[in-house]
């Protein structure tokens, strides 16, 4: 079972997304995307230990393009 991850396009968007989540009270950590082939090659993801679906909504509302959200076995 993997970690809950939000895969993003670049380090720039990963840092921007982390900033946005922080301002919304959601903790996240920047990591390299663990399985690059699933995200069209190397990239950066945010590990969001809790509230990943909320994090996804916040980022989408902020106009951040998400490549993929991997719930990592979490249902919510």
């Amino acid at each position: 079972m993997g970690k809950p991850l939000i895969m993003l396009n670049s380090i720039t968007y990963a840092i921007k997304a982390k900033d946005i989540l922080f301002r919304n009270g959601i903790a996240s950590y920047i990591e390299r995307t663990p399985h690059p082939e699933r995200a069209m090659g190397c990239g950066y993801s945010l590990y969001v230990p809790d509230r990943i679906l909320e994090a996804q909504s916040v980022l989408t509302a902020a106009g951040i393009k998400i490549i993929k959200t991997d719930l990592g076995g979490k249902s919510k």
Partner: protein
Amino acid sequence: MIYLDNAATTYPKPKQVINTVATAISKYGGNPGRSGHSMSIQSAMQVYETRQAISNMFNIDGPENVVFTQNCTHAINTVLKGYLKANDHVVISCLEHNAVLRPLHSLKEKIDITITKANVYPMDNDRTLDSFRQAINSKTRLIVCIHGSNVWGIKLPIERICALAHQYGIKVLVDAAQTGGLCNIDIQDSGIDFLCIAGHKGFYAPMGIGALITKYGENLQPLIEGGTGTNSISPKQPELMPERLEFGTQNMLGICGFKAGIDFTQKKGINNIFKHEMTLIDIIYEQLLKIKGIKIYTPKPDPMYFVPVLSFNLSNFSSEEVALKLDKNNIKVRAGLHCAPLAHEFAGTLSTGAVRICPSVFTSQKDIEYFIFILKKIAGNLI
């Protein structure tokens, strides 16, 4: 040493910039945006913070709309070669630098663009605007204008030029090499579509760093393609900014120095720096008028219409001779054409060039007094 060549690059650099660059080379050794280890992420955070500082300073939404370039010329080339298509028409001002003229000349030869030069009338913005209006035709896709002339210090009414251009659906590129860090520029208020800046002039950053600031970057064809650390399977350059227009390893030291330079100018206050330099230019102008044989080509610099750059000539001497004599007295200025033949054509100095002086935040009134003292000696053939 008295350094009055700040229009070429500012010197000295503030201690904060020097210390930051020294720290960066030892602390931020990881390649930003390439790896997942902590040092790479820390470097990436520094790059992002600089993007954020620039986006805040120029009031553009999103740090991703700040593209790091080698210099202002690189930023200008990125727009001209990434935006213009065959048979497009471009309007430029009559004061443009070779950073604009040469890429446009190349595009004219390769894809048959056409170019019209709009005249600039110092201290008469209505007339200048009218000149731009008359230069526009049905094929015009871009207006390129320098914000502050690197030779004569003449400031163009960029807000009004943008408003005019947008009436016709034309985009505007502003070359702010001389004004970034010295004049307040608000991208949203002014309507600038592509803002090109240099880090090493008004921001007191190291040489070799500049930026293109635009929300239209995703519409530009990349000037150079290559590794971005992302989307590596695809043979195509990423579509999203800033990676669309950035390639290869970044100038980490330049970027860190850029941020320190922005902090420096903001702490000093852009308006305070501008006022200080214009006061010195005013003194120089008044003193030059009193020296026999001095030729000045512009009206007394009004801060509304000028930035602190002033050029002159001294009869019986070439501009290079004057610069050389000043250098022998440890005063650094730049003579010749300043990579801006069009600007010299405008003032009738294409065959002679001119001696250019530009103070910085570190220039004192005492420095100016010594410069005038030496210039008087040169004029009187005493040295």
